[in-house]
């Protein structure tokens, strides 16, 4: 009460004025670059076999029937659906969006042509789409070591390198195929890491998932190539409900790449995927993601809602699961790739770069649950927020009473570009074992004028300088990406941030 309004206001008003001038200058200088159109925004016209919007038991039965699923799968879906009906929508994330009408979504969409024997039978329009996206399917065989299971909407239409993989005994197929061909494996592992009742979106996914990937690497096998799936949402009003299940049996190793782009749309598209990883004794799974879905227009209209549940279970001793993600797209990202470190000496890693600009919102992070002895986890999270972007790191490190000698190191850095964006950090740390060692550090900063000046004085343009500084900021994470992805990720980051400087 003692400070009168006069004490406070002048300074206040001055700052506000300064800020707005600064913002206006930045807008004038870089606006054209920021507003550059989404590069991958086009729609492929292709006949689709789509169910009418709505969700009830008959829709689930239809999905199951179209996929020719056995009865147990249908029962599983229906059980999940009934649980889902009773679940509340999670509201705790720092993201805002209008309520979703789940009855206005079409839950199944498949390109009409099916049962392809070779790439030649694939719809040429589709192949063209992939080419526009820079996925050279026809050159896949020439491209060393990358097998692509390209998902166009909800059904796998092309899978390559199957023979080479099967020689090694690795199963790499769509989840629908796996349900038919390897029911015992699917029944054993599906839902064992992320149960249908885990949260609202996993409930929905478990009821209606249409496709996804199944990987099984047998004992003592090193998967001979990087496995990769490109996802692409293409049908208006269809949510994609992917289900990925990767099992690495004892002593095996697999690296999996996931990358996505989506065409421009006016309506928000829901994506609620579930990814489950299981690593048995001495096994290692490396899961990398580059996510570049349509983020919406300048007002945030039409972007993808990306509500994903990803979780890995280090079930065996000495196992390792590593998540690396580069998140530049989507209107809303809600995603927490996690590790349950159950086996003794198991290792969990999470490396993340997330960029939000325009009206993008990202609430992302990880959970590291230490249960076994001498378990170790590392979290490196780099958040970059520009324009009106909102970015939150939300993470949990829990060291249970029996996790003797557990070790965690967490580092969360945020970079703010502009004065209208936000960067939040919400770490939760729960330690119940005295031999545990836990460190957490976080910083928030902007690109310093000194850094910029130094680069400019060396003849770099401001754009290049910023791109360079930001890439340096993210380097720790990019180093974890497989080569092909690292290049793509760096390029993506530069494009994403073009002009967002001010």
């Amino acid at each position, binding site marked *: 009460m003692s*400070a009168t309004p006069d004490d*406070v206001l002048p300074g206040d008003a001055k*700052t506000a004025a300064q*800020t707005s001038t600064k913002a206006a200058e930045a807008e004038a200088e870089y606006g054209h670059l920021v507003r550059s159109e989404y590069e991958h925004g086009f729609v492929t016209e292709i006949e689709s076999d789509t169910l009418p919007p709505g969700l009830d038991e008959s829709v689930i039965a239809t999905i199951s029937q179209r996929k020719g699923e056995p009865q147990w799968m249908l029962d599983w879906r229906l059980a999940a659906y009934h649980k889902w009906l009773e679940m509340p929508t999670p509201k705790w994330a720092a993201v805002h969006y209008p309520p979703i009408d789940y009855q206005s979504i079409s839950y199944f969409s498949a390109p009409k042509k099916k049962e392809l024997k070779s790439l030649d039978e694939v719809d040429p329009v589709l192949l063209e789409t992939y080419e526009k996206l820079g996925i050279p399917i026809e050159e896949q065989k020439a491209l060393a070591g990358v097998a692509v299971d390209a998902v166009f909407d909800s059904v796998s239409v092309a899978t390559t390198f199957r023979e080479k993989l099967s020689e090694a005994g690795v199963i790499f197929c769509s989840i629908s195929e796996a349900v038919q061909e390897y029911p015992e494996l699917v029944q054993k592992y599906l839902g064992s890491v992320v149960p249908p009742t885990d949260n609202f979106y996993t409930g929905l996914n478990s009821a209606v998932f249409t496709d996804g990937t199944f990987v099984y690497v047998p004992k003592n096998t090193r998967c001979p190539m990087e496995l990769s799936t490109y996802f692409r949402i293409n049908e208006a009003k269809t949510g994609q409900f992917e289900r990925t299940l990767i099992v690495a049996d004892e002593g095996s190793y697999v690296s999996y790449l996931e990358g996505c782009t989506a065409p421009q749309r006016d309506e928000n598209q829901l994506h609620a995927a579930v990814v489950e990883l299981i690593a048995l004794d001495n096994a290692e799974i490396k899961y990398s993601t580059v996510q570049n879905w349509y983020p919406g227009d300048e007002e945030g209209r039409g972007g993808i809602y990306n509500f994903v549940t990803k979780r890995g279970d280090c079930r065996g001793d000495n196992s390792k699961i590593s998540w690396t993600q580069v998140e530049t797209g989507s209107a809303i990202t809600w995603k927490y790739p996690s590790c349950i470190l159950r086996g003794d000496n198991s290792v969990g890693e999470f490396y993340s770069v997330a960029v939000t600009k325009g009206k993008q919102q990202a609430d992302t992070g990880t959970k590291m649950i230490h249960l076994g002895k001498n378990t170790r986890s590392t979290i490196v999270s780099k958040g970059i927020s520009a324009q009106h972007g909102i970015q939150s790191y939300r993470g949990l490190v829990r060291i249970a009473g029996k996790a003797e000698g557990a070790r965690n190191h967490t580092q969360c850095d945020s970079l703010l570009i502009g004065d209208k964006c936000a960067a939040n950090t*919400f770490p939760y*740390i729960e*330690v119940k074992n005295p031999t545990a060692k*836990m460190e*957490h*550090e976080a910083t928030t900063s902007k690109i310093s004028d000194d850094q910029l000046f130094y680069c400019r004085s060396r003849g770099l343009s401001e754009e290049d300088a910023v791109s360079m500084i930001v890439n340096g900021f993210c380097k720790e994470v990019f180093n974890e990406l497989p080569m092909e992805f690292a290049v793509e990720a760096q390029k993506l980051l530069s494009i994403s941030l073009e002009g967002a400087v001010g």
Partner: protein
Amino acid sequence: MSAQALKTETPATAGVEPAPFDSWLPQAAAGEPDWLAAARAAAAARVHTQGAPTSKSEGWRYTGLRTLLEQGFTPVDEPPLGEPMSALLPEDIEDVLVPGLDAHRVVMVNGRFAPQLSDLSGLPAGVRMNGLRASLAADPTALAERVNAVAGDGAHVFASLNTAGMDDGLVLHAGRGAVLEKPVELLHLSVGMDEPRVAQPRHLIRLDDGAQVTLIERWASLGDALYCNNAVLEIDLGRDALLKHRRIQLESPSAFHIAGVYLRQGANSRYDGINVGIGGRWARTDLVTRFSGEHAECDLQGLYLAGDKQLLDYHLDVHHGLPRCTSRENFKGIVHGKGKAVFDGLVYVAKDAQHTDAEMSNRNLLLSQNAEVDTKPQLEIYADDVKCSHGTTVGQIEPEMLFYLRSRGIPEGLARRMLCIGFAGEMIDALGNEALAGHVADAVGRRLEAATL
């Protein structure tokens, strides 16, 4: 509370016992000013509709209220008309005084101002101190503008409870430029309560422009009684004002302790606060800072020792709504036995709060298998030209350090205690008052002596 708190703390209506806090509320007192009666009624209604927070409310995720609610606390009895609030004499409280502490002393017994134990002589011109009740009796309207001026009609259920049930407190007003050479000791003494009682003091501290005060707030008890204190401090700092605030919580081992420190800082003011938590069975402290002028500095430090099935919970909420303010948060904890410590710090930097400098650190020594630390250092930042960081560690005593001391012939138990005292020493030194530092060091030493480390 901040926007974040308002957003996440939706009142829990389902599954809550009806009106869990009704027994806490006093009978309407006759002769109270209308504004106070109205504020009490509104707060009581708010508590009634909010109910008790559950572990689903974000701010109470790690802090269960079950044991607190089970006690069925009732307000401290009013003394018969004409009798003093407390019959204690100065010689009765000698044991709880800090030897060698030269201070203006205000003693509250079971939440009531006890003039016969207090010493308010020699106050310089411009500094006024009185009990809350006495102030109201002298001028019923004087405090109408000050009660809840800083704390607000906040979402915090215990602040509302305090508004509804506040029984007395300290009203301190340091006028423009007044400088108090000697510290003010605010001693809360809980004594001889045979039934579980709750005292709800409300302190109103106001420093006008340029005033400088040191406030030593202490909590102690005579005996091991079970009781509850639910205190609210409203601190209003004018331009260039300086408040050094030492909070030493040494409640009885059976006590419940709830404190809300609400702070508003004017331009260029400085708040230097150190919270020491050692006593109590269940203690919750909320430190809430808001800035009303630029270039203000807020230092929140803390040291907590939790053991013996103790719960010590600190919630910090620093809201940078204006540019160019600085906040430092540095809390250290030693958790042993079946102790549990919670640290939940939030630094919020609003859109226009450029040039904010905020630093948060929480370091914990976890010493036993059954102890638990839950820490949540949060940053919410909406401005780009800021310097914000936080760091947290949870660990044990380094075996190398222990080995070094043992190789010098020091028994393991003593070595561990020495290392703990070393860890705590930074905060004890920072107290900046020799007598008080000695008092706290003794309490820390006694605790570590008794603990199996």
